[in-house]
């Protein structure tokens, strides 16, 4: 009964709930006692609802209504195109392929990194984040320099062995390759968090009972991380369906069009056809809603299934790779050379040249630091870097803080309507960035407080945009934490808030850290809503990148990319060091 005194929301029924069933919905008994818990929970839910509904309402209104009332013409404009079947076919093949590749690569790397005594660990971890840092346009163009049939360096190097132009990046396979590799860090970060929180004794039992390594992987390891896998698939599928950078730079050269090219055109013309863009986004919304529902269903089926962080003490211990160690080591070196070192070297090479040319003595003798000097000479570079830092760290902190609580509401609580919180938090993922920017400026131009024109409006935009990712990271981790830990804390008299802070938060730290890093890194290249919402004085780094892309020099752009990789690698390392200080420790 101590628990009851400390926290009236915990009823005796809750404490006696059978440990292995899904939590019983007890809406009839639910009451709203005035406790800090209630304020926090209600506050977080309201914040999520607000952040999600502003752009969603704006988009839906623009899609379904015009000045005269209900109007479905936008659907005809969006889908009436005769090529729609082909566009969707290309889009689905591209997104499906990219998802498959990034899931395979990200999961394998995460598994090797967390669960095995793999060689080159330090280099490895840092390097698997690099594709995330490099802006999509730079990553894609460096692949053109590597694997174009006309000018690809890899093609030139390998021609004596493999014949003329073995690689062609301007194909659907090339698009899948680049997008898949570029997205693999999202999966990597999610899966690292999942593997960190996995009790290795389960795998050890399987091995001891005679299962082979492969069987263990298939029957024990992968099923245990299913929520994280599902989250990854969902996020990657939707982001690849929305992606335009890779299809535009690689696909268009050979006439491979995807359906986002329609969004690109309808949003460029005046008056902007937000209705048609919205009608296209509605399809994505449907995919997202179904996807989230399915992950909830699977994760909710006996919530015990994925709870690997339990009251029994466990220390994640890396598996010894045995005789496979050198093989894996070589494989990893090869992988990094191809996907990380290759593109980065090309970028560095381009950044040192006044204009791009094939490598030669003449090219090397024209190496110059002018491009870097130009970056430092830009009027607003220092200010932009500072603003990006403030926004990146601010958005990452706020989102992960909110989402930690939201994940508790969604995964653990018995509050009626908890599923809606998770659905809402996912909504911004399907909203095109420009629409997000427009909806936010629409609201804050009419808001009584002077938020428009300040850096706060960018912070709100970033929080909205990255909420879906934050939720995936937090809720995936939450499904892994056994409810018995919380229950023990409460039985021992801790209040809900103390339990959350002292028990859950530290245990969630792998997921929170991963989410924090993800948001920090990608917020540095957020452009589509920043460009509309920034004001003189609060420029961000991505605006400078856009500027160079739009009207400037690709080589200066490459220099910015190289500097970004250096700066963000440093920050990611710091974040991980801090994240590793709390929560689960490795041996």
């Amino acid at each position, binding site marked *: 009964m101590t628990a009851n005194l400390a926290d009236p929301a915990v009823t005796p029924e809750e404490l006696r709930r059978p440990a292995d069933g899904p939590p019983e919905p007890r809406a009839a008994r639910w009451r709203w006692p005035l406790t800090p818990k209630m304020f926090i929970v209600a506050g977080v839910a309201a914040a999520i609802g607000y952040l999600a509904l502003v752009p969603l309402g704006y988009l839906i209104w623009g899609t379904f209504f015009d000045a005269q009332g209900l109007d479905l013409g936008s659907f005809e404009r969006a889908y009436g195109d005769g090529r729609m079947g082909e566009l969707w076919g290309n889009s689905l093949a591209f997104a499906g392929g990219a998802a498959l590749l990034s899931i395979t690569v990200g999961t394998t790397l995460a598994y090797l990194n967390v669960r095995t005594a793999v060689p080159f660990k330090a280099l490895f971890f840092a390097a698997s984040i690099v594709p995330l840092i490099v802006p999509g346009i730079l990553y894609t163009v460096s692949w053109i320099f590597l694997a174009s049939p006309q000018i690809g360096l890899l093609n030139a190097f390998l021609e004596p062995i493999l014949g003329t132009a073995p690689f062609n990046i301007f194909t659907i396979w090339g698009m899948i390759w680049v997008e898949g590799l570029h997205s693999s860090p999202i999966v990597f970060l999610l899966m690292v968090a999942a593997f960190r929180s996995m009790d290795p004794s389960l795998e050890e039992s399987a091995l001891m009972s005679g299962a082979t390594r492969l069987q263990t992987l298939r029957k024990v390891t992968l099923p245990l991380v299913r929520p994280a896998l599902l989250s990854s698939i969902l996020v990657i599928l939707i982001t690849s369906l929305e992606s335009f950078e890779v299809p535009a730079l690689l696909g268009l050269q050979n006439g491979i069009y995807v359906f986002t090219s329609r969004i690109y055109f309808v949003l460029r013309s005046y008056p902007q056809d937000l209705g048609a863009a919205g009608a296209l986004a509605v399809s994505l919304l449907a995919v997202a809603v179904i996807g989230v529902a399915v992950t909830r269903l699977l994760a909710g089926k006996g919530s015990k299934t994925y709870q690997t962080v339990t009251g029994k003490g466990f220390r994640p211990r890396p598996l010894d790779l045995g005789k496979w160690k050198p093989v894996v080591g070589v494989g990893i070196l090869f992988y990094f050379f191809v996907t990380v070192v290759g593109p980065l070297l090309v970028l560095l090479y381009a950044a040192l040249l006044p204009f791009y040319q094939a490598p030669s003595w003449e090219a090397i003798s024209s190496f110059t630091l002018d491009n870097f000097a130009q970056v430092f000479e830009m009027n607003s570079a220092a200010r932009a870097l500072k603003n990006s830092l403030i926004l990146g760290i601010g958005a990452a902190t706020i989102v992960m803080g909110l989402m930690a609580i939201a994940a508790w509401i969604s995964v653990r609580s018995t509050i009626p309507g908890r599923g809606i919180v998770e659905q809402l938090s996912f909504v911004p993922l399907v909203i095109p960035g420009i629409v997000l920017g427009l909806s936010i400026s629409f609201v804050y*131009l009419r808001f009584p407080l002077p938020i428009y024109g300040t850096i706060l409006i960018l912070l709100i935009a970033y929080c909205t945009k990255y909420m879906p990712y934050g939720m995936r990271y937090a809720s995936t981790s939450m499904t892994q934490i056994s409810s018995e830990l919380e229950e023990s804390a409460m039985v021992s008299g801790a209040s809900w808030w103390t339990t959350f802070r002292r028990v859950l938060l530290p245990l969630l730290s792998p997921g929170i850290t991963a989410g924090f890093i993800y948001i920090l890194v990608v917020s540095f290249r957020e452009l589509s809503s920043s460009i509309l919402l920034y004001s003189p004085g609060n420029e961000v780094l991505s605006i400078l990148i856009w500027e160079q892309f739009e009207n400037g020099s690709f080589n200066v752009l490459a220099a910015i990319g190289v500097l970004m990789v250096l700066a963000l690698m440093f920050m990611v390392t710091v974040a991980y060091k801090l994240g590793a200080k709390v929560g689960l420790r490795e041996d």
Partner: protein
Amino acid sequence: MRMPRTLARTALAAGAVMVLAACGGNPTAAPAGDAGGPEASGPTEAEQLYEEIAGLSGQERRDRLVELAAEEDGLNLYTSMNADMVDAVTEAFEDEFDIEPSVYRAGSETVLQRILQEQEAGFPGNDVVETNATELMALQQEDVMAQCASPERMEEVPEAGKYEDWVATRFNLFAPSWNTNIISDPPEVWEDLADPKYDGQLALELGDYDWYMALTDYWLEQGKSQEEVDQLWADIVDGAKVVKGHTVMGELMSAGQYGLASSNYTYIVEAMKASGAPLETQPYVNPVIARPNGGSCMKTAQNPATAMLFMDWLLTEGQEVLAAAEATPSTAEIETEIVAVDGQKLLDEGSEWSQRYDDLLSGVEQVSD
């Protein structure tokens, strides 16, 4: 028992969305005709000032504007000029008048969106706008700008750069450019782009539908039939590659991915050439397609005198600054035949042309490698 409750909740959530959306009216409908409503209540203070100064000219006008600007609070400029250009312009303006303009810089579509949103909400964010013709025509239609440039200076601007509410400050020139290591016999007339000898070497840009429109019109005016023009375009696109972005267009060409770019901005090619890239754009293929970029003062300007001073200056001393930043100033003599993109037509038929260009390009045949 559970199902109805879930349904009810979903309905509630959906209802909340609708209510929330309904509160603001239709936010995405184009604010045709009623942009913020400054015109509803007669001329604004800024308009009155423009009116008053319009009668002045020469040094008298300049002195009066400098005097009035001193009482105002800086200058807010929204522009799609590139960074080098805008830095050069603002620095020179500050050197001259000791007023540091505060600049919002973005793509022309974004500049337009921002102004429309602000005007609709009655938020006077900018004093001056400087951007592309299409977007300026849209702003002219929304009736949010007031012509404020000095009539003397406007006389120097060619007809293609003079509009009711705005005036051209510079031109963006579209011309073919080529990699001199790959192309030894560059095109001399636009029709040459259709020549099969450039198959596999020609690149088109994804968003250049304004160029597409202007060139189509030019050919039709030259007496070609619609069929002939269609055939030319089909031959151009046949064997062509599509790229996105003018910077990337230049970069990939200097790297040798293809040898000929149909419609890059000359200033991008000139800048790359200056840094040693093997690119060339001259002798120009005649006529060069020019898209006016211009500026105007806002009716809701909070610093109208400074706005006027800026526009006057940009059309006089500022023209040299623009030229030094590789731009083509609107008052300078251009030594080649020019065909200007028709701003009004772009506004009226822009989305149609954009769709046609998109359809044309997506018919691009597979380049077999």
